[in-house]
């Protein structure tokens, strides 16, 4: 058989195995996730009032796989009239949904959670194909967290009177929800679950570049028997989102996306009675003290900025290292980066997948050029990146300062800026010295130091000796220009009730 020839071929009789070692692990043989079990349709319609309907404009647009640049499917392009139909459906459904026995409401949400679990692999493959994130992350993080989010909030539906001391909570009405392209399924879960549990109805507008997992979720919602109109999903572009924000029958807006758009939304609804929550950008400080567990801190840095290709609002994109350990940390970081694999997101060994779009890649490259122009020292490990599709190597900028534009502005890619600091007061001041305030990381072995920092950092989430950890029970949201309102935990119920 050919295989015994293989065994012979890889071994030199006299010398030990040194010569074959290089090929053992230097390039892991491709290990692609199988995708032949998924059900991909060539064309996707809008989900309004419990049915899949054609867009009123009759226009469809292409959605692509950013790892290849190739089209995956055609997706309906919703417009303001479709939004109107969806909001009307949600409004009508609200009459009965808000009066449905909470225990029964919970059961629909439990069903959705269970069905996501049952079809987890298919969701993961879709998420990776449409968005570019590695299959390892969509399989191990995005999809399980999404299912768990529905589970958690399902349990609140019939217990709301316990969550608000001395108040009887009521649902608000129709929620208009606009979500981004970096965690398409997870953001849909973060928005839908608390809204439904509290008795509201929803019109959801997914990001234009990543509509597929939301539409898959629509299939599950239909199968779960959820009453028509309780959840409506309208795919489309920015005009669609604007129509949703401005629709008079929408009572609450939930938006996750960039700070500039968030500000626009806040301005648009001024003077109306619409409630809003905004989850916007960030430029988080990740702070390493000299008494940190250094090897684990380096891993935390890597998770902080290269997780999801750095397309994370709470990414630890500003690294602060206490000066007396800076050299050691930077060396270890560079060594660790050399083992990161940039490649086909469908390969199980890929650490860093594709950048979500050409536009985003252009933006990241623009910042990389800017950083070099600003005089910062750049480091990128030697690694191969695919020749097609949108890819970016993990990048460090060493020796930066607060005044560098690459330090102040959100890049939203696998690019980390590095500054040193000498004292606690200094790093607290620099960490806070930015209009954003979403998250921060603190690495030190000393407990009392952790709590000192957590009280002083002006951010909504502090990770101590860890990074990028999410849980449905844990509230998430920002200070300052990173937005307001919380998602997750008990506090995640507040934005969806009135008293």
């Amino acid at each position, binding site marked *: 058989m050919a295989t015994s020839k293989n*065994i012979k071929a890889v071994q030199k009789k006299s010398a030990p195995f040194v010569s*074959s070692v290089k090929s*053992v*692990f230097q390039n892991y*043989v491709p290990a692609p996730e199988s995708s032949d079990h998924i059900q991909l349709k060539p064309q996707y319609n809008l989900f309004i009032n419990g049915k899949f309907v054609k867009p009123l404009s009759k226009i469809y647009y292409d959605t692509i796989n950013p790892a290849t640049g190739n089209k995956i499917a055609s997706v309906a392009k919703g417009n303001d009239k479709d939004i109107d139909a969806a909001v009307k459906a949600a409004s009508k459904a609200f009459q009965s949904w808000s009066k449905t026995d909470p225990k029964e409401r919970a059961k629909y949400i439990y069903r959705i959670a269970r069905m996501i679990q049952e079809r987890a692999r298919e969701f993961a493959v879709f998420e990776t194909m449409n968005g570019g994130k590695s299959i390892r992350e969509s399989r191990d993080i995005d999809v399980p967290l999404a299912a768990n989010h529905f589970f958690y909030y399902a349990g609140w539906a019939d217990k709301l009177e316990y969550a608000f001391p001395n108040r009887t909570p009521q649902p608000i009405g129709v929620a208009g929800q606009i979500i981004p392209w970096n965690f398409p399924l997870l953001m849909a879960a973060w928005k839908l679950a608390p809204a439904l549990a509290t008795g509201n109805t929803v019109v959801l507008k997914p990001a234009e570049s990543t509509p597929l997992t939301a539409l898959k979720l629509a299939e599950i919602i239909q199968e779960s028997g959820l009453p028509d109109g309780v959840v409506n999903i309208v795919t489309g572009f920015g005009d669609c989102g604007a129509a949703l924000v401005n629709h008079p029958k929408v009572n609450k807006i939930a938006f996750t996306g960039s700070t500039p758009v968030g500000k626009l939304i806040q301005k648009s609804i001024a003077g109306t009675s619409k409630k809003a929550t905004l989850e916007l950008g960030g430029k988080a400080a990740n702070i390493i003290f000299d008494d*940190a*567990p250094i*090897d684990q801190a380096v891993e935390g840095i890597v998770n902080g900025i290269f997780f999801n290709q750095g397309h994370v609002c709470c990414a630890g994109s500003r690294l602060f290292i206490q000066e007396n350990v800076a050299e050691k940390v930077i060396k270890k970081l560079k060594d660790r980066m050399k083992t990161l694999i940039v490649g086909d997101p469908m390969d199980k060994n890929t650490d860093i997948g594709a950048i979500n779009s050409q536009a985003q890649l252009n933006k990241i490259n623009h910042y990389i050029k800017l950083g070099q122009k600003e005089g910062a020292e750049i480091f990128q490990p030697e690694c191969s990146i695919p020749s097609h599709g949108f890819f970016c190597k993990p990048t460090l900028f060493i020796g930066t300062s607060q005044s560098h534009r690459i330090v102040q502005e959100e890049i939203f890619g696998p690019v980390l800026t590095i500054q040193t600091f000498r004292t606690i007061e200094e790093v607290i001041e620099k960490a806070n010295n930015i209009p954003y305030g979403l998250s921060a990381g603190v690495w030190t072995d000393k407990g009392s130091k952790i709590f000192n920092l957590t009280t002083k950092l002006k951010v909504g989430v502090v990770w101590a000796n860890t990074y990028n950890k999410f849980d449905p029970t844990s509230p998430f949201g920002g200070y300052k220009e990173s937005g307001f309102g919380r998602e997750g935990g008990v506090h995640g119920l507040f934005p969806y009730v009135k008293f």
Partner: protein
Amino acid sequence: MNKSWISPTVDQVGVEERVARFNTRSVKKESKMQGMLLALNMIDLTTLEGKDTAGKVKQMCYKAMHLADDIEGLPTVAAVCVYPNHVKTAKKALQGSNVKIASVATAFPSGNSSRKIKLEDVKIALTNGADEVDMVISRGEFLAGNYNFVYDEIAAIKEACGNARLKVILETGELSTLDNVRKASDIAIYAGADFIKTSTGKIQPAATMPVTLVMLQAIKDYYDETGIMIGMKPAGGISTSKQALQYLVMLYETLGEKWMTNEWFRFGASSLANDILLQLGKEKYGVYYSGDYISKD
């Protein structure tokens, strides 16, 4: 007496997360096969039982040189590992092969004995022909904070070893925390160890990936400081080829190519070899294999 020894602090949860990440690596096809052959060549085939006899040792040595003669192109294991009083038997049985002989010594496994006896134990092993010595550290002294004692003992044993390579067994299962594992690793390395080894295999837990990762990190830091390579041997508890591959992934991504030979990395194992042969049998014949076709020696 100076009771302090400063080693870097280790976050256990962080270590476990890094290990979990290694375990998501998917090693397939040629990579997998090459990895398994490499793993075979890194095994210290071990028998350390009270009931060991010359017969047992001879049979194991034959297996060490002839893992499965019906599959072409297999390597031998790296070494055999026995008690000092069986070294002579092993030496004779392994004549002409390049399989090394490692002997445990220093009142293995407990190490609860005098310096005099431990040195004598090493002398016997070497006189009988051992190429390598696997010693145990004094865990009691370590946990009592007598780090100088632990250090001096290792240095003395190293001296007695002469040209023989010294592996220092930390018995991580008794050290309880990863901070302690790191500290013991550093002490052993600085005191002269050629290899640091996780366990005697006589207690649970034996080798685990988190403990191994911490030890690899100690070796890396030492190499970055001094340019000197130290070897590593996880022992006990690694019985499947899947586990062995996971360890090799961890080794590769932490220390790199240079360590990917049996000069610098060993598996202390007894049943691992047969599990790898089972997998190789599948590769050769294309169907899932059975233990009936692989010798048990």
